């Protein structure tokens, strides 16, 4: 099967804008809210959402942090290769905050499970919401759902969802490739 494009760059921008407005509806001025991107791929989306929100709201003080979940994974030492750690950078207390957790693709739910654990080491948030660009809803291993979703995709396990970013890959794009094609 040929690679299929799910979101091209113009739809991509629309989706980001829609997610931002959904967030504003819920969080108003973000004085009690913060955005946490999950390393490594979630931070691209989190940064985009964060800068777009600041532009729309004309604010410069929306809290934003990066969270690395490597040390909290449930498959440590099962992959046969070491897992590199990434930077965690959360400069504000999460105690009593409304946290918006951001990742690019929600798949099995295991990453988010680890992220919830990791986050608790920084305090006890008031509530936690999940925002993802792509929700592969048929492959969940854990009872985890996103509140804000860019696009829902029904795909099979042999297919891979690739999210590309202007910053690292040249353009914003989401596409599906089946593994036997690569």
């Amino acid at each position, binding site marked *: 099967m040929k690679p299929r494009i799910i979101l091209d760059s113009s739809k991509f921008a629309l989706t980001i804008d829609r997610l931002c407005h959904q967030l504003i509806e819920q969080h108003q001025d973000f004085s009690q809210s913060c955005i946490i991107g999950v390393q490594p791929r979630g931070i691209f989306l989190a940064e985009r959402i964060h800068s777009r929100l600041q532009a729309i709201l004309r604010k410069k003080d929306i809290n934003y942090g990066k969270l*690395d979940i*490597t*040390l*909290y994974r449930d498959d*440590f*030492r099962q992959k046969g*290769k*070491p*897992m*590199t*750690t*990434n*930077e*965690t*950078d959360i400069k504000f*207390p999460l105690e009593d905050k409304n946290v918006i957790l951001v990742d690019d693709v929600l798949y099995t739910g295991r990453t988010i499970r680890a992220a919830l*654990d990791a986050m*608790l*080491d*920084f*305090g006890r948030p008031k509530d936690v919401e999940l925002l993802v660009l792509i929700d592969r809803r048929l492959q969940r291993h854990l009872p985890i759902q996103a509140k804000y979703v860019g696009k829902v995709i029904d795909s099979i396990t042999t297919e891979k969802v690739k999210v590309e970013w202007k910053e690292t890959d040249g353009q914003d794009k989401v596409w599906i490739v089946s593994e036997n094609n690569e």
Partner: protein
Amino acid sequence: MSALSQKHLIAIKDLQKSDIELIFQTADTFKEVLQRPIKKVPSLRDITIANLFFEDSTRTRISFELAEKRLSADTINFSASGSSVKKGETLLDTVNNILAMKVDMIVMRHSSSGAQSFLSNHIKANIINAGDGTHEHPTQGLLDGYSVREKFGSLKGLNYLIIGDIKHSRVAGSDIPLMTKMGAKVKVCGPPTLIPKYIEEMGATYEPNLKKALEWCDVANVLRIQLERMDIKFIPSLREYSIFYGVNKDLLDSIKKDITIMHPGPINRGVELNSDVADSKQSIILQQVENGVAIRMAALYLLADRG
């Protein structure tokens, strides 16, 4: 991203430059973990580690124990005094009995150089050397390098001076290969009786005059005079040593540049290092201790991953 090239951490000279860089990078992550409100991660919760100290230790032992606890590992502690070692049990028997209780990793200090290397040929568990005789103390070398890197950004091109008893020092044994592998230049300074004959083969040069050596260096690591390892007299007296090789404020003030001062501890205040230097802004002695936990967490984490 690569794994460590070694299954054990026994000597810096076995490591490649990329191994050292990987340990430094991983330590950056753990240093951040140690600043959090909850300073603990669950990554080694399925690992049991035995700390075998056949020789006394305060800093290293506490540092390893904290590192293990911060990684959620289970730990057991063993010291030679009050154990069956006194009844004549051999090292290999002692360790095999501990391993029979399903222990995954061993952290060991021993007064015989090469004890850990011997063990690594006979057992499956990962071994971390916490100091073997007068040979190496790799986690100390790593934390020294890490502390200097933190202060200067990189080790490349730095002039690194080690002062004191080089011959009996496992800190020098690890610092010299680490610094040279990372591109720093190393000089040693001390009484000729305490300088090993093979110093140039280790990659360092010798300067007998302390003032000249200090003028050359960016960082000076002042070693402890280890009277317990000297079975014959290598120096006439501590007082004479202190006059010729003791580092004090007057001496440092007579040199134009600001030198960073390190010490692996415990300090003999007034012998190799005066309090006016040890407690000054130039000293990064307490940062070394702080970084020790992060470095040991990184070593444990990466070795556990090697299985």
